[in-house]
């Protein structure tokens, strides 16, 4: 018997996370082990809700979603296909066997622009159904050049489709705290960064290296495994592992940035699907974000930004020698 579990991922307007780097995958616990939540069957069918909102029609939504879907499908080396299956009167929520995308009136979620919900087979990690809603309490735009005061719907669809594919949030980004307690993005290195750009911005219609690495990890074609490499290591403080440290791998020759986290008490990390080459590693605490955007459990944020003592090579088709990065308390 299939045992389904529900999951939700959201993108925030001005509350939440973080600084600098990484892709994180959604997972399901199977027999005590976390497996990636992924689609086993492709193409992934998409229905569009037939209601518009605030000047944006259902047809506009379809256009934005199809452009965003095409952007994910175009990632070289990844095996991802979507298929538009039509309009539906069903809302983008609940369990009806359809992957539905559309507007939903959620004034109670005053900082949530949109969210993706899933039904996942808890025995295999297979995603059975996913819905995406855009919060119609906000003003959206589908203008090619963006529109002042309105959130770009294609950018938001690109982020939510990343969740639909099984990606969690990236922490590659910097924010500044606002007087109202929220945060404003200063810079972002991933579409999967959890906080949206300022209304009117359209730069996040383009995937970054971190987004692509995450997708390649979930849906690799045959050559990706042998064509990419990984960096492994451990972040320690006073000899003990650091949980929840955020790492950015920066290749000074290609300028790409891909991130990861230490996911356990041991402080071990893996940065996978890196184009082969040397990388500068930067470690930082998740202290200018709400860590629960990334982790369900507490993380250690009491350490200073630290760099690995040397560049580390991601070899083609393999992993680096483990490197230990020692951080100091603040």
């Amino acid at each position, binding site marked *: 018997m299939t045992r389904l579990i529900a999951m939700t991922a959201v993108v925030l307007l001005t509350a939440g996370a973080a600084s600098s780097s990484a892709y994180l995958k959604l997972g399901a616990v199977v027999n005590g082990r976390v497996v990636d939540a992924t689609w086993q069957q492709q193409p992934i069918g998409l229905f569009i809700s037939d209601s518009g909102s605030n000047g944006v029609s259902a047809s506009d939504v379809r256009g934005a979603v199809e452009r965003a879907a095409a952007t994910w499908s175009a990632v070289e080396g990844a095996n991802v296909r979507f298929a538009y299956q039509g309009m539906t009167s069903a809302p983008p929520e609940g369990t009806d066997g359809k992957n539905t995308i559309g507007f939903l009136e959620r004034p109670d979620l005053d900082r949530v622009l949109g969210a993706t919900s899933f039904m996942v087979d808890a025995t295999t990690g297979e995603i059975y159904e996913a819905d995406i809603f855009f919060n119609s309490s906000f003003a959206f735009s589908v203008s090619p050049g963006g529109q002042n005061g309105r959130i770009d719907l294609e950018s938001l669809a690109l982020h939510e489709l990343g969740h639909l594919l099984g990606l969690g949030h990236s922490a590659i980004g910097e924010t500044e705290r606002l007087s109202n307690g929220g945060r404003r993005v*200063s810079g972002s290195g991933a579409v999967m960064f959890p906080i949206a750009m300022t209304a009117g911005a359209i730069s996040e219609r383009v995937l970054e290296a971190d987004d692509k690495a995450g997708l390649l990890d979930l849906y690799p074609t045959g050559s990706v495994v042998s064509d990419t490499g990984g960096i492994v290591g451990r972040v320690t403080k006073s000899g003990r592992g650091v949980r929840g440290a955020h790492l950015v791998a920066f290749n000074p020759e290609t300028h790409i940035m891909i991130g990861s986290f230490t996911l356990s008490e041991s402080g071990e990390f893996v940065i996978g699907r890196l184009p082969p080459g040397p990388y500068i590693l930067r470690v930082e605490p998740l202290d200018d974000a709400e860590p629960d955007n990334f982790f369900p459990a507490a993380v250690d944020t009491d350490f200073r930004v630290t760099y690995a003592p040397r560049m580390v090579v991601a070899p083609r088709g393999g992993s680096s020698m483990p490197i230990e990065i020692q951080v100091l308390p603040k």
Partner: protein
Amino acid sequence: MTGVMLAWLIPAVAFAQDGPGLRPGHFTFGAGVQQAGGYDIGDATAQLRGNGPGTLPTPFTLFQATSRFTAVTAPMMHVGIALSRTLAFETAASYGRPRLAVSIAGDPEAPAQELPGETVEQYLFEAGLTWQLPVRTGRRVAPFVAAGAGYLRQLHEDRTLVETGQVYHAGIGARYWLRGGGRSSKAFGLRGDLRLNLRRHGIDFENTMRAYPSAALFAFIGL
């Protein structure tokens, strides 16, 4: 004017032919050390997409990295064959372990710092020509000019990535014969080289041509 120049050159050539030289058709072997100067390998800025309207808002700098190879002393061996009394074709190989230093700046959350860096294993295989200058320098010393090209192979510290490139060089030097130097006797002596090297590819943030000086001193045996 032309007549004056010829008058100056011809005696010099005649003298050089009487001075020490190579034995045409014979091999020369040498071993010594080369000191190569350090050089920058470029800057790189880790930038995040900026937050603003339009497709290209001002980016946000996460940090800047600059890097350089430190000077290195490397053992060097060469084999040459004399094509004439003054012209030789030579091959050479050297092995060095320069340090690849990385400096970090511009990080809003961390002070500027120099990282310990890594030690790179570097192999250089070269081929080139030396031509002994027809100038009067004494009975045992003969200056020469040299030029050539080489294949550069650099391995990062964990030996999992090789980066290759080319090195082109031109320079001057002198051979000092402790023994031999005539047409029929075996030779033994010392040799010094000063070069300007142009390196292309290999480990480099920007993949541009880099220039660095080098000096070498070694002993040679002419068969």
